[in-house]
């Protein structure tokens, strides 16, 4: 399989103007989920069925009798988006086989789910969907905690982050454990396409959505989603923080296309992680020494990724 697949979006002018995610929804001012979903629907187009489990996005966009969705949309429960999507995909297949749906009609089945609904409570359903090979693109918007219920720790909350269930006290300083490497766990299912993305690099993200929809079989796009409310930053800083995540290599944009791995946004010169961390209230309690410890962890991760790629795609910290 050649890696030279088509790049659909080279510049901002390549992006369709049609808005399938309507304004007037109730997401927080400065929430980057809206940015991700808006671009996701532009990439997917009208012939798309969206499955969205319980979470911020669901409660903010579907309060009866209003909806922000201009494509067919279904919410069922919290832990089963991948299962519902499996049923939809199977139904389309069956109805195409029986001539009820035009067999030549391409209908995308897309899940858009938070980290809790994906990596924690929805993980079994996700693993089942991947193993069975349903042609579904699963997009996980990762705001690194249960934001809808009010900032509780999830499996993807990074180490040392404050949340309401990992408070900063005299003894404990935020979350003790590491962030669950969800995309890599998905990749272990050997599905055709897995990628990580970030709304600051929106063309890269949209091209990944297109690739995810193109491949035969399941695809998974793990998108970092800075949360103004939960991460404790000024609402105008969401995209800046997302960009800093990549620039500091706290977040690496990569893809694994039919087993071939590449970093899609190389960072020749890295910034120190403090630039990312110091903008966020959830890390306020960290000392300079704590941040140095995080820097060392990131250095090790960069070394590992460079080793996989076989060359230095992420460079050293240059201040």
């Amino acid at each position, binding site marked *: 399989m050649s890696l030279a697949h088509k790049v659909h979006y080279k510049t901002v002018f390549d992006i369709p103007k049609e808005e399938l995610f309507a304004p007037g929804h109730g997401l927080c001012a400065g929430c980057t989920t809206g940015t991700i979903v808006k671009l996701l629907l532009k990439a997917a187009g009208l012939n798309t069925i969206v499955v969205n489990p319980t979470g911020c996005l669901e409660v903010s966009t579907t309060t009866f009798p209003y909806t922000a969705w201009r*494509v067919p949309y*279904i*919410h069922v429960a919290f832990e*089963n988006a991948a*299962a519902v999507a499996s049923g939809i995909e199977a139904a389309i297949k069956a109805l195409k086989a029986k001539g009820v749906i035009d067999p030549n009609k391409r209908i995308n089945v897309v899940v858009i789910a938070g980290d809790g609904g994906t990596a924690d409570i929805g993980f079994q359903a996700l693993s*089942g969907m991947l193993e069975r090979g349903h042609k579904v693109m699963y997009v996980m918007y990762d705001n690194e905690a249960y934001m809808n219920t009010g900032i509780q720790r999830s499996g993807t909350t990074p180490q040392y982050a404050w949340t309401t269930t990992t408070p900063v006290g005299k003894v404990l300083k935020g979350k003790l454990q590491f962030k669950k490497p969800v995309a890599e766990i998905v990749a272990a299912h050997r599905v055709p396409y897995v990628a990580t993305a970030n709304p600051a690099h929106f063309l890269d993200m949209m091209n990944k959505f297109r690739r995810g929809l193109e491949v035969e079989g399941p695809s998974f796009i793990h998108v970092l989603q800075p949360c103004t409310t939960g991460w404790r930053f000024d609402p105008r800083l969401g995209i800046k923080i997302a960009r800093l995540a990549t620039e500091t290599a706290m977040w690496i944009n990569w893809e694994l296309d039919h087993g071939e791995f590449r970093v899609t946004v190389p960072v020749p010169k890295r910034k120190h992680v403090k630039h990312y961390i110091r903008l966020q209230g959830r890390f306020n309690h960290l000392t300079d020494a704590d941040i140095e410890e995080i820097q060392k962890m990131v250095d090790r991760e960069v070394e590992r990724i460079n080793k996989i790629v076989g060359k230095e795609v992420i460079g050293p910290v240059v201040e």
Partner: protein
Amino acid sequence: MSEWIRIPLTSNYAAAYAAKDVDVDVVAAYPITPQTPVVERIAEFIANGELQAEMIHVESEHTALSACIGAAATGARVFTATSAQGLELMHELLFIASGLRLPIVMAIAARALSAPLSIWGDYSDVMATRDSSWITMIASTAQEVYDSIIQAYKVAEHSDVLLPAMVAYDGFMMSHTYEPVYVAKDRSIILEFVPKKKPSWNILDPDKPITIGAVGNPDWYYEFKYQQVVAMENSRSVLRQVFEEFSKKFGRWYNFIETYNMDGSDIAILTYGGLYGTAIEAVDIMKKQGLNVGTIKLRVFRPWPEEELLKILKSLKAVIVIDRAISFGAALEGPVAMEVLTSVYKKGLSTALHSYIASIGQRAVMEEDIIAIVKKSLELLEKGVVITEKPVYWGVR
């Protein structure tokens, strides 16, 4: 009967044949004893090309019903089957399937709930779903399983109803017992009865985008739930129509309840599932012994067939309700007995009601047990017991 062939089937296989003959599009099911042969037989039908359907080999019952919801919301005719723990794992989704008004049909080989672990038949699982807004039928023969599933699709998909439906039968005693069953030689006669037309419910269609599963705040939620009340109420007349049409078309008679030897009897045993067969045998034996007792089978549990039951109950001196599940801590711990009592009280009948619990975890109930239960009730009546304070826990050591 040339349109039918008579073959030996267990109730599980009868369920699989019914799913095949209504030409389901999607099946999502997870194996659990004693339901497993349903899934196996459907897989064989698909493998042999006898059924053209997508079978989703899910990783849990939670996913089974979730996938059925997704498929039904896309306009497919769907089927699933489960038992006991599987039904409990689906519990959350039962309410969502009915709330989204999706006409899913599910077969249940009824089984006891853990703990302690028991794979054996009783109705604890079915009774625990009673407030989930599913139309609930309980069969007592394999033929009835086949016929009820076909009827269930017609009722569930009716535009005045649009509620999911379950058809239950005894785990093991029925699920694994072969009986002669008439099945359609060619499923076209079944599809004439339950035609596959354009869904009458709202579906996920890119040409007509809608939002399914919206948030219902206090200003709307109640109305959605009340619509389910109306739909369940509507299902009564639709069930009646469907039973009549089925009886006329296929010559097998069905109703909300079934009775045996009620002429001239003023005492009746009311039960459900395969135990009704045992009750019939017991009635015959008692008749030979000079004791004239009738028996009533509850065939439709939801909606509760009050009108049909009262027609029988009003002329009775006593009804003996044998429940096959326990409603722990309830006013009367036999779940069906409690409902019968409500109906009796609502109409101010003086019919005595004796509640018995039996066959829990498939503790054997034989004809002699039923006879002994009747004799016990005759004693109670002599002592002036109109309503049993507590159920009689029959056969417990």
